[in-house]
């Protein structure tokens, strides 16, 4: 079976998109888990601070999520644009 150059590029494109999304999702997942764990810790210790802690946790998670979003955007570009 002969694989032409275009097919090779096509195959590598899908491989790259999968690797990009899979590896890029590890970091944000761990980071958001740590943020949630510590916020829960704080909530258990001081239940009256729940509102503030929840808001700060969501902001922190949203910011640490942005690297995952970048990899999603790169994966989308690889799949649909390149």
């Amino acid at each position: 079976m002969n694989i032409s150059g275009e097919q090779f590029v096509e195959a590598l494109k899908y491989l790259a998109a999968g690797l990009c999304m899979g590896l890029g999702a590890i970091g944000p997942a761990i980071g958001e888990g740590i943020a949630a764990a510590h916020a829960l810790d704080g909530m258990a210790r001081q239940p009256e601070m729940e509102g503030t802690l929840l808001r700060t946790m969501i902001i922190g998670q949203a910011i640490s999520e942005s690297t995952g979003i970048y990899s999603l955007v790169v994966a989308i570009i690889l799949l649909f644009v390149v």
Partner: protein
Amino acid sequence: MFERLGQKLILKLQLGPLVVSLDLITVVMSLVVSLILILLALWLRRAIPRDPEAPVSRRLAFLSMAFEFFHESLLGGFSPELAKRLFPMITTLFLYVLFSNWISVVPKAESPTQNLNVTMGLALMVYVLSHYYAIKTKGARVHFRGYLEPYAFLLPMNIIGDFGRTLSHGFRLFGNIFGGAILTTIVLGLTGKVIAAMPVVAPFAFVFGTGIGTFLNAWFGVFIGAIQALVFALLASVYIRLMAT
């Protein structure tokens, strides 16, 4: 004038040397969201009684609860004067993004926030407004000298950080909503194929499809949509607050 780009209908307008392209579905869905918001506002406004002594109706209680929520959670650390000025803008931003995310639950409808141009436009608006309020509260000299802090040679870093913040602000909303839409389509298509291949459950494919579709829409449309709208409005208020104080 009208062109097709993939599956999308594009309206091309020639304005002098510029060519302006509009995605018609996004424009129409955006107008629908605005219409829903206007009707909701008019309906809720009718609940406010003329004399302040009248008994509290359900709608009025809901309205005051919503106002308190927005004041507490979106405009937490602002000075009272600035909070009063920013309240309409931040609340509108939140409601617009929330309803744009939620409208994807309706079959065939597409959220306006699935389009990068919409989210980037909102993020750019927040960026310009943050500079406006910073100059207004601190004065232009103090504000632009802030870019030389803590050391003058960090100026490029500060400028890049500024743009990166706006870029990630727009990309975050777009990525979440668009990723959810792609995932919903792919998973629904895959379950259809898998179930059709199985001999026993194939006649009940419709039931499985409806169940999974409902779950995916509830998760990505309603839950993630609400969280992302809150995050978008919160980050907008935090960015303006960081610049202005």
